């Protein structure tokens, strides 16, 4: 008799263990990935961006920075694409392929960091403005409106011009000029979540403000923010290239797509490849990020489940 009871008890225990194992949170990222895979455009974007990332990470193994990307070699100048120089050479005889590979590092790095800066500062301001509303909201948003009134690129130019041209300053400039945009998106997103009943429910069970913002408001307002950030990395890369193009970005001879375009534009008539390849690199990165952004917008929408 006693044994029987014990058997039942262990059975029950086992069942509960099973349940507990299952209680591990089913990953929502997996769900999003499943839906993202359904969009061919997004998959192409992801493949492209992975190629670019791999290029940036393994640049050392693809080409040598000193000899291929930086060192002038006037004998080989303005060669068309051939088997030694896949993308040809530029006006100083440097290998364009190597320069694009190393340029990827700078572009992706500047893009990510500047968006990171904008997201952290803009996002925090936006979340505070959205959640508390009233006077705080008014104060934060009016200050940001002033920033918003200046065109992004003009603002970035002003900041770089004031701080001096360097990669660091470039990131700060692009980052700051994107703050108002992020603040607006985060605020709007927080506002739409904040009035839902589950936030009220959290208050009713006695959750404190910071718990509510971190555990309920932000996770539910993530979707538009992620999409916006993805798209903004693309614009940040464009802005970096634009600033470098007008000479306010990365100092030569550091390979950067925008400055490569700028340097090559005098030779465009005879040697198209000099501008074509860096241009193509910019277009493809921006395009792939946009494709991913659009794909994410659909994949993150829980209503489509």
């Amino acid at each position: 008799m006693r044994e029987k009871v014990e058997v039942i008890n262990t059975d029950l225990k086992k069942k509960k263990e099973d349940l507990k194992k299952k209680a591990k949170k089913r990953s929502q990222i997996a769900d999003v990935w499943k839906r993202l895979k359904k969009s061919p455009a997004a998959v192409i974007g992801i493949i492209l961006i992975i190629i670019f990332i791999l290029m940036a990470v393994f640049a050392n193994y693809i080409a040598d920075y000193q000899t291929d990307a930086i060192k002038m070699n006037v004998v080989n100048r303005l060669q068309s694409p051939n088997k030694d120089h896949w993308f040809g050479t530029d006006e100083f005889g440097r290998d364009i392929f190597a320069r694009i590979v190393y340029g990827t590092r700078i572009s992706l790095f500047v893009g990510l960091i500047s968006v990171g800066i904008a997201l952290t500062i803009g996002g925090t301001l936006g979340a505070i403005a959205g959640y508390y509303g009233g006077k705080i909201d008014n104060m934060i948003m009016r200050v940001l409106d002033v920033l918003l009134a200046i065109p992004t690129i003009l603002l970035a130019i002003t900041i770089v011009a004031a701080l001096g041209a360097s990669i660091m300053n470039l990131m700060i400039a692009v980052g700051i000029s994107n703050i108002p945009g992020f603040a607006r998106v985060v605020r709007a997103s927080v506002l739409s979540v904040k009035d839902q009943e589950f936030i009220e429910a959290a208050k009713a069970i006695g959750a404190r403000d910071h718990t509510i913002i971190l555990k309920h408001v932000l996770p539910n307002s993530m979707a538009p923010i992620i999409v916006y950030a993805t798209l903004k990395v693309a614009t940040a890369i464009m802005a970096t290239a634009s600033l470098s193009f007008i000479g306010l970005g990365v100092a030569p001879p550091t390979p950067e797509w925008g400055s490569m375009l700028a340097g090559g534009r005098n030779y465009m008539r005879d040697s198209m490849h000099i501008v074509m390849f860096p241009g193509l690199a910019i277009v493809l990165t921006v395009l792939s990020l946009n494709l991913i952004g659009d794909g994410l917008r659909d994949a993150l929408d829980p209503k489509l489940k």
Partner: protein
Amino acid sequence: MGEKLLEVKNLKKYFHTPKGLLHAVDDVSFSIEQGKTLGLVGESGCGKSTTGRVILRLLEATDGDIYYKGQKIRDLNSNEMRNLRKEIQIIFQDPFSSLDPRMTVSEIIEEPIRLHKLITNKNERFERVLELMELVGLSERLINTYPHELDGGRRQRIGIARALSLNTKFIVCDEPVSALDVSIQAQILNLMKELQAQLGLTYIFITHDLSVVNHFSDDIAVMYLGKIIEKASAEELFNNPIHPYTKALLSAIPRPTIDKKVKKIILKGEITSPINPECNCRFANRCNFTEEICKMKEPSLEEVISNHFVRCHLFKG
């Protein structure tokens, strides 16, 4: 006569709007005894939901007192209030928006226990979640599902389980069944009744549906534009409605029978704006019995019959 668990005195809640002061709740008083249910009935915009939220201090009252077990709720500081939330809870109308879509069933039910550190041991907490799920009739295999994967009835059960997860004594039920299908509605109503009997809960039942409230409540207060216009025991109110609005409301319910037809009282017009109301009877412009005095002076809530209160000039003493 049982013990008064909750007492509301002259409660007022005004909202500032661009058009003027909105009198959402205007001088509302009532009390509820331990283990009983008070039905708060009225049409949209009458202030019934606002009343519920003000009691829980999800909204701050403009004026008036709320006593819970003799304790003035409005004077509590945030820590004391947080403590009190273990006992007073709310069930929401919309089971689709009242649950965080990014949390699983177990996380939702567990959250209050974790926040108040009632059970710190993870395994015990898990047992408690299973216990609560069983209590509200949720199968334990649903423990890892997300709310959007479930139907309205099950979601509402999650909401009830969450409300019960603490040492709940008193629940504000804000239209808990009006978003559900009829057959599910009956299941949830029965569940709530069973839980009341089993756990000795006290309810405020906010609804626009008189047939539900009749079935569910011991006492009923009818609200119109922020004021209680009639208050009595459920039995008394349904057998002997006095206020013209209550009468019209009762007759307007579509009855699922064909043998006895009740003569309908069709009210003219619609509810007026609660912004800057005039000092007259707020129902005067829709009432079929309006007299001169109704447009001049606001009636007071009078005890017409023992324990039956009416706010109407036509019935005084």
